[in-house]
């Protein structure tokens, strides 16, 4: 499966990709984007099977990206990987159509718990 990792931090994109590997989900084709606007173009051009996105980014936030995708009728599975895991953020993510929200800092176990139903199921 092709997985799109969206984060304005190159360091965090690398940590997310490393954690995918550590959680047993390393055999996928990874593509990257630096913000929501770039991610929107990548989704349209490359049709990934899953989007893992940060929330707080310049240009276009993760929630704006998700809302833009759903407004276009795009139903690509979408999960957040963000430093903000409060109840209201989780409710907003779910309401917009996100499958899960993984809060930073995360462990490989947290990744596996969130991703296994999407990648294995």
């Amino acid at each position, binding site marked *: 499966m092709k997985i799109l990792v969206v984060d304005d931090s190159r360091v965090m994109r690398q940590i997310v990709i490393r954690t995918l590997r550590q959680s047993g989900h390393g055999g996928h084709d990874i593509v990257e984007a630096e913000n929501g606007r770039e991610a929107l173009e990548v989704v349209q051009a490359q049709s990934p099977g899953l989007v893992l996105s940060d929330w707080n980014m310049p240009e276009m936030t993760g929630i704006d990206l998700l809302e833009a995708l759903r407004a276009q009728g795009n139903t690509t599975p979408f999960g957040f990987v*963000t430093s*903000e895991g409060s109840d209201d953020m989780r409710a907003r993510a779910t309401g917009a159509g996100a499958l899960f929200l993984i*809060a930073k800092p995360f462990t490989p176990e947290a990744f596996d718990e969130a991703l296994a139903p999407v990648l294995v199921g």
Partner: protein
Amino acid sequence: MSTSTAELSMTHVHAVVEEVWTTFLGGGDPLYEIAPPTDRDPAEQGSVWDAAITVTGAWQAAIVICLPDGVADAVTRAMLGFAPEDHLAPEDLIDALGELVNVIGGNIKSLMPGPSKLSLPLVARGPISPSTSLVEACRLDLGWGPHSLRVVVSVPADQDRDQQAEEA
């Protein structure tokens, strides 16, 4: 879980920093609290990096982390998975320290009443001073091996007065 302003304490901030530190840096040296005033001021350990982020909304704050060169270098290498001989560019340090304060700030924000919004991080080689309208609400001096680092949470003066009134 959210807490009232009065409950934001060094214990909460320490727990957040500890969790972020352990997850990003793995099982290395633990962080330990240093009672201020300390002779191990980060600024006394060579040049320092400051990483800052602000929270606006129902709870307002500026969170600044001050790290000496040695800590900034080690944190960045650990986050990137770099070996000691790998070259670190200043952009790598700025990126890693920005993400560090972003995660610490996001987790502290999650403990406080919402809704509120996290800014993008700001990283500088040298001190970042919060707005003069903010007062220091919490200062945490931490040791890490031979190094030390500091985390300061500043809040608007009226918010701090409310906190002190609740504590009284």
